[in-house]
């Protein structure tokens, strides 16, 4: 069976994290050559899974790392069709509790990381676009860039910034054949979400983690939260040539969570 990304080269930052890993796996199944970029081969996963992707050590906050990663892609494939900026961190604090260091770190990973990786990927993506098919950048926004979760101030702000950056990049690089979109996930079962449930931000109210998770599922119109594969499904479509007219948009994927008003217990 031929995949819909046959012949394409992709690089996924945070490629060994919860959502990034699922995207890498999906891209591989669709026939792409995939670079999984992360801090370590294991990333935030419980163990390293040798999935067939090419591991690239990339700290997205470091300009030298971004340059080196793209030099390697240049040397090995000469082009980059797909870039997914999935690396991200979440600090669970209000602005009063957030230190300047944590604030800067949030922006460094979530915004500057998207900026740097994209900046140095662009020449390779222009080359890819010369084939006639558009190249595709997929950023990670969040439904938190539209509405706030309590105690996640820096995270909400970085995601709002990514949304605006997405539109700006789409505007600037569309004429070069490069599409830019953002995926805005709601609650997705990842190490980041599990850390949220066990962290101080969970509230808890005497409930077990299982009860808390069920309560969160129940607020969703679909009565569940998402899996990394749900996100990978849309990323895959946006990466493919089927999405050749899709650019500059923020794609919310949240089981209907943000389509509703607050769900009071009445």
């Amino acid at each position, binding site marked *: 069976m031929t995949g819909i990304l046959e012949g394409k080269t992709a690089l996924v930052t945070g490629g060994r994290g919860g959502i990034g890993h699922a995207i890498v796996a999906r891209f591989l199944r669709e026939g792409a050559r995939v670079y999984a970029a992360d801090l370590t081969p294991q990333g935030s996963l419980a163990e390293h899974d040798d999935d067939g992707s090419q591991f690239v050590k990339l700290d997205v906050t470091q300009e030298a790392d971004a340059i080196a990663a793209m030099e390697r892609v240049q040397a090995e494939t000469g082009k980059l069709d797909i870039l997914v900026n999935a690396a991200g961190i979440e600090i669970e604090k209000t602005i009063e509790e957030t230190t300047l260091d944590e604030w800067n770190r949030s922006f460094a990973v979530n915004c500057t990381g998207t900026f740097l990786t994209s900046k140095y990927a662009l020449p390779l993506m222009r080359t890819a676009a010369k084939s006639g098919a558009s190249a595709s950048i997929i950023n990670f926004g969040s*439904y*938190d860039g539209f*509405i*706030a*979760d*309590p105690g996640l101030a820096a995270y909400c702000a970085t995601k709002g910034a990514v949304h605006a950056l997405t539109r700006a990049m789409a505007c600037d690089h569309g004429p070069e054949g490069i599409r830019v979109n953002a995926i805005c996930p709601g*609650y997705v079962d990842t190490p980041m979400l599990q850390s949220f449930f066990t962290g101080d*931000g*969970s*509230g*808890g*109210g005497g*409930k077990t983690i299982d*009860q*808390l998770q069920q*309560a*969160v599922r129940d*607020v969703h119109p679909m009565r569940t939260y998402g899996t990394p594969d749900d996100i990978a499904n849309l990323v895959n479509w946006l990466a493919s040539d089927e999405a050749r007219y899709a650019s500059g948009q923020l794609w919310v994927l949240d089981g209907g*969570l*943000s*389509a*509703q*008003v*607050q*769900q*009071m*217990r*009445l």
Partner: protein
Amino acid sequence: MRLVGKTAFVTGGRQGIGRGIVDAFRAEGAAVATCGRGARPEGLDDSVTWYELDVADAKAVLAIAELTSGTDILVNNAGVQVEKTVVDSTDADWDLVMGANCRGVFNMCRAFIPAMPQGGSIINIGSISGKVADPSMALYNASKAFVHGLTRSIAVDHGPGVRCNAICPGWIETGMLEAGFDLSNDPQAARADALARHATRRFGKPADIAAMAVWLASDEAAFATGQLFTIDGGMTAASPINTGLF
């Protein structure tokens, strides 16, 4: 006083938000008329003109527009609410909700705009429910989204003579809100939960909405048009998931 020398017409001024706007406009010096289905309500200030009018009735609306020709400020507040899903809604429900909330706003705007003086201001009452869905309020939610779309169209088509904006209220303290809590198994807990979802830790009052209506009606808002102004105590700025409340 910010509305001296202006005339205003507020639909649905019998009670709640409409009455709040009538009172605020009057306090700011406007000459105010209002309307509703039925007789003049008790307690309405003598200076306020009352018209018996169903806004869904195009002919009746046109007759009132002729009587009040040259109105500076039109507030389309009259509206009804039916609490049903699409599957449960009847044709009569459709006629009722769309008649008042959509056709009513259309009737009023179509009849009043031609005689509105330069600098006229139309204020439609939309809703947060036109942006995000309240459960089991299908026709109401959709009718308010219609109001939001019409607001932008009027602003675009009838500027620079007339400005048109919408206010999107959240939960406002009215008899309807209290009745909702009373239906709950534990009205006190329901009220506390709902309050905790508001950054202001209180519900809105008709005066909160009226305060924005006064500003939008005034010349201070001369550059504001085509926009939706949400006044909801911060409720829709927050995610529906608030694990602190679980």
